[in-house]
């Protein structure tokens, strides 16, 4: 009787616990020794890169049938994806392969031994495929635990048709001229620029702020701490933009609203990266045709011609003691970063990459060409604010822009608020 009771007791406990352990287990081995690599990915669904990436994964799986199989797990929500990766890493359950936006917060993933170390792999021929400096950017304390992949370039977009309507012949080269032209746009019934304070990083406005800072601070802009006067000077310009030259809903607006105004032809200026080409081409063909790209105007005493270019997505993998699994992961990453494969993604999606590749200039989207030329013609390129400050400091930008726009905060107080978050 007693032993039967214990057996039933054990069975119940097992019934409750076993599923947890089964579902919590990470790495999978397919049938017949096939290595299954799970890749939770944001490049799915409506993402412009999805079709090309899908095709490449399919091609890889066919070429390695019975040996390696890459399984893409769709995660189309960017913030949700980041949260999922954070939770997985904290739980020690690192996905086989994953994507992350490199910044001081996410580079904390490098601590400990959870990620695969690619330092030696990249020392050889593979590393030579990358744009100089990009691997260095993914290297911390001499160790490279992620592969630089997509890069972003975010020039200022402007609608030439709306500029023509306001009688403006060319994009202003200085901020003195910018204010005059913005007034002319307003007089013509056009809102000068899209701005936003919403989302996790106030994206469009964070990029405006980064452009202005680049003009003031030059190439070393991000070497300067938040106590440097450049941050206040740039904030003053942002405050004026928010108070006089943007839409009524800018405070509280998210990326959908700020982009929507530009697509609808309500605003004359906007900032985003090449991944937005597909959307503007499909949803607003007239605006697409009228769109030109340019560097930001020069702040008095500052530099002209800078572009904001930054590592957008790095690829990382879970560390493993299994040499076969490690080799499989590296093989797939090498496949994905092969110049001809990267060119395929670039041509289909409009994105730019940290890998050296050739594109057929006759067969490429004209707006994408403008992006490539914008970067090539830049007097210098620096990354954006977000890439240089922890996530919580960037998150405070939107709140601060809103407070300045509403006159609740001076530019000095705005920067002090950023400092307070950074020091917390």
């Amino acid at each position: 009787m007693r032993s039967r009771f214990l057996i039933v007791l054990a069975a119940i406990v097992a019934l409750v616990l076993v599923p947890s352990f089964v579902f919590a287990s990470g790495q999978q081995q397919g049938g017949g020794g096939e290595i299954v690599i799970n890749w939770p990915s944001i490049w799915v669904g409506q993402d412009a890169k999805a079709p090309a990436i899908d095709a490449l994964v399919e091609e890889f799986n066919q070429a390695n049938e019975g040996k390696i199989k890459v399984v893409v797990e769709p995660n189309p929500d960017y913030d949700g994806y980041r949260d999922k990766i954070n939770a997985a890493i904290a739980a020690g359950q690192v996905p086989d392969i994953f994507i992350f936006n490199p910044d001081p917060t996410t580079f904390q993933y490098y601590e400990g031994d959870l990620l695969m170390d690619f330092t030696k792999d990249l020392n050889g021929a593979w590393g030579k495929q990358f744009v100089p400096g990009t691997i260095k950017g993914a290297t911390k304390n001499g160790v490279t635990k992620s592969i630089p992949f997509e890069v972003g370039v975010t020039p200022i977009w402007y609608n030439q048709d709306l500029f023509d309507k306001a009688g403006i012949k060319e994009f202003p080269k200085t901020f003195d001229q910018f204010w005059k032209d913005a007034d002319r746009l307003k007089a013509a019934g056009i809102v000068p620029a899209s701005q936003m304070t919403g989302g996790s990083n106030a994206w469009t406005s964070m990029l405006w702020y980064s452009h202005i800072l680049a003009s003031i601070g030059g190439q070393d802009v991000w070497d300067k701490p938040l106590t440097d006067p450049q941050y206040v000077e740039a904030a003053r310009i942002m405050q004026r933009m928010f108070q006089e030259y943007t839409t009524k809903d800018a405070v509280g607006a998210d990326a959908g609203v700020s982009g929507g105004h530009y697509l609808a032809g309500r605003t004359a200026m906007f900032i985003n990266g090449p991944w937005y080409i597909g959307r503007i081409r499909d949803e607003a063909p007239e605006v697409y045709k009228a769109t030109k790209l340019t560097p930001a105007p020069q702040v008095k005493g500052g530099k002209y011609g800078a572009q904001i270019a930054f590592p957008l997505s790095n690829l990382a993998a879970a560390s493993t003691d299994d040499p076969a699994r490690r080799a499989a992961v590296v093989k797939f990453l090498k496949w994905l970063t092969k110049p001809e494969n990267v060119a395929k993604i670039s041509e289909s999606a409009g994105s730019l990459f940290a890998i050296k590749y050739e594109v057929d200039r006759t067969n490429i989207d004209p707006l994408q060409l403008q992006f490539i030329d914008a970067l090539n013609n830049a007097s210098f390129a620096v990354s954006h604010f977000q890439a240089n400050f922890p996530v919580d400091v960037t998150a405070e930008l939107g709140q601060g822009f809103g407070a300045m726009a509403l006159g609740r905060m001076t530019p000095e107080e705005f920067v002090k608020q950023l400092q307070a978050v950074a020091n917390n």
Partner: protein
Amino acid sequence: MAGRKLNKHWKGILLFLLPVIVLYGLFFVYPLGFVFTVSLTKWNGVSAMKFIGFKNFIDNFGNQNFQLAVRNNFLWAFALGVVQITLAATVAMILARRPKGWRVLRTVYFLPNVISKVAIAMLWLAIYNAEFGALNAFLDMIGLSGWTHNWLGEIETALPAVMFQEVVYIGYFMIIILAGTMSVPESYYEAAQIDGANVWQQERYITIPMIRSILVTAMTLAVAFGLRHFEATFLMTNGGPANSTTVMGLILYKALAALDYGHANATGATLIIVGAIIIAAIRRFLSSRDAVAESKQ
């Protein structure tokens, strides 16, 4: 001593209880302990935890945004626990009198509760939009252009705007209160009518005392929802403008995104402690014996 005698079926009872005990321990007690443990550490989820005592709590309470979040959570608890429950109780009492079409109205009031909160928040985002939102368009149309606002982008209007779109959906609590109200014996009202009591007096002296325990339960739930409020604020304002709508749940979320698990869990622990105190206080001061149950004895 007879009362202390072990039930002869104790093994069976234990077997039936065991799955729940194991699940409760695994998915509630253990995580709760983990929250309190991590709240006393500095931890980014990757490196080893470092014990730092109550520093995270001290940091939080010294942080202006956190203070604002605590204030807003209390406002949310008030808005849901008092305003929403009052509205829900009023509508429930009206419907309990079975006016014409009361069944349809009951369904109409409850319907928003089966729609995702995300969808509802998106709907209200569109309604409140300053440029092309329905609310401003309506105000313009009726000649009240001076009343138009960037509802979610102005400090004075953002918090009330987010609260309004949540408080107005009274269906969930209305159904709970309605069920209680309809269980009050009809004979009480008939007797009151014979004694000359008007409708207000009937509700005041019969319905409310009879459903007191249901009201307290509904209020407890509503206050708990207010204290842990997150979704609508996250989706509609992300705590802005200028952190004026921030809540503790959002501060916790942002700390998690920043891999600052120490502060995130300290915020979570504070939420748990504050919530437990407030709910215990509500139960202590507002609860009474169930009049409906008593009446049936």
